[in-house]
């Protein structure tokens, strides 16, 4: 059979394929039917499209919404769990580090410092604790308590410890100061000797602590001026400390405090003449910045067990303190 035969038969056969009369009549009837026409009018067409769009939304939008809600829930849960774990880990780290550090504090001035974010958190904890302590101290001061009270002593201890720990963190991780230190708006009217020792020790051992203290003290000059009074009961010898260095003589165990002429803050300590060294009180007073009369003072003292005091030096310092007081009073 030739190719042409198959093609011709196909063309001829396909040409006979026509719509059945019944289907044709049905269609013509629909085309002439007003109801059908209305059904396919513009409004109906749009309504159908809206319906189709809604069905699509029902099918795909609903599924997408479910997926989205599920995904969101998963993300929130995941974040919450991760956050909780992180916080818990950091908190545990901080607690452990604090405990460990304080247990070694009186030893080699060492302790475990956590790394990374935990160190930063610890740093912030220290800062927060210091602020809390300062507020409490201020509260005590405002309610007429003396810093020599047991509770105040404990608070001061806590402050020093946190300051030391914070300084250690700053030193090890180069943590910068995020905000100014709170102002020391309380008066170290009375201070147990060990507190002063610790202040000095801290200042000497870790310059960062010294700086943080100084930053706190100079941050509000008005507050400092308001407290620049030397009480009448000031006795003993005076140690001045100004923005600078505390050095220890390794042979004699004496500490020397050098005050530069352009310092900002002075810390004066007065030792009582009580016979019992364990009851010796130290007096700490904040002096005004740029108080040039005392600026050149250099004091030294010995921190041995018996708290031996060079009486001549004591007298000299007392004179200097009186002179400073007089100078200040005249201003």
């Amino acid at each position, binding site marked *: *059979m030739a*190719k042409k*035969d*198959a*093609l011709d*038969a*196909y*063309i*001829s*056969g*396909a*040409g*006979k*394929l*026509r*719509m*059945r*009369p019944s*289907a*044709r009549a*049905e*269609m*013509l009837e*629909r*085309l*002439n039917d007003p109801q*059908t*026409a209305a059904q*396919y009018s*513009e409004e109906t*067409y749009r309504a159908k499209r809206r319906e189709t769009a809604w069905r699509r939304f029902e099918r795909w939008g609903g599924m997408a919404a479910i997926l989205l809600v599920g995904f969101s829930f998963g993300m929130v849960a995941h974040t919450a769990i991760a956050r909780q774990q992180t916080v818990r880990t950091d908190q545990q780290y901080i607690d452990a580090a604090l405990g460990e550090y304080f247990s070694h504090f009186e030893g080699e001035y060492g302790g475990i410092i956590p790394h990374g974010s935990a160190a930063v958190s610890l740093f912030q904890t220290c800062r927060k604790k210091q602020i809390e302590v300062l507020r409490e101290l201020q509260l005590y001061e405002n309610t007429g308590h003396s810093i020599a009270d047991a509770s105040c002593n404990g608070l001061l201890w806590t402050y020093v410890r946190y300051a030391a720990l914070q300084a250690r963190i700053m030193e090890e991780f180069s943590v910068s100061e995020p905000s100014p230190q709170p102002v020391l708006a309380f008066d170290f009217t009375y201070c147990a000797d060990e507190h002063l020792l610790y202040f000095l020790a801290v200042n000497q051992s870790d310059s960062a602590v010294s700086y943080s203290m100084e930053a706190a003290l100079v941050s509000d000059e008005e507050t400092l001026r308001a407290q620049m009074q030397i009480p009448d009961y000031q006795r003993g010898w005076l140690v001045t400390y100004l923005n600078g260095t505390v050095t220890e003589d390794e042979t004699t165990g004496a500490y020397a405090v050098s005050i530069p002429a352009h310092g900002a803050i002075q810390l004066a300590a007065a030792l009582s003449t009580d016979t019992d060294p364990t009851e010796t009180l130290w007096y700490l007073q904040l002096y005004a910045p740029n108080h040039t009369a005392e600026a050149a003072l250099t004091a030294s003292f010995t921190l041995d067990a018996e708290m031996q005091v060079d009486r001549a030096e004591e007298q000299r310092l007392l004179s200097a303190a009186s002179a400073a007081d007089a100078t200040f009073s005249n201003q």
Partner: protein
Amino acid sequence: MEQSRVADAFSAHADAVLRAAWHITGDRGIAEDCAQEAFLRLMQQKNAMTDAHILPWLLRTAMNLAKDYVRSAEHARTVPLSDHEHELFAAPMDSAERTALRAMQKIPEKYRVPMQLHFVEGYTIQETARLLGLGMNTTASRIRRGRTLLQKAYEEEAL
């Protein structure tokens, strides 16, 4: 489009549209449904359309509807009446014509449709290519290849 124009178009092109759909579905009833749907959609057309454009538009629409049907799940559940298909043709066919149509149903759609448009509906290769959205060379080669396949299938059917 106005009802009267759609009715005129139906009278003039219903069979051609039916054939185009039938070549894809292979089922007369489905092809009729597709053709009717194509005309109803023509009624929905808001764009102005010249008479010359109506038939190509109808053919494309009917073929797309037929393709959609073939792809749909409904198609899988339907059994075509292929054995009695010839009895439903409007005009009586001889055995050669029936054999040729059965043979045509055996060759792939991509050859079948261009051949139908070219040989039965009388479109040129260029017009067929434009209707199907194909290149001219592709269309020509499909028609040529389709003829060979038709011949082969026809001979097999005749046996």
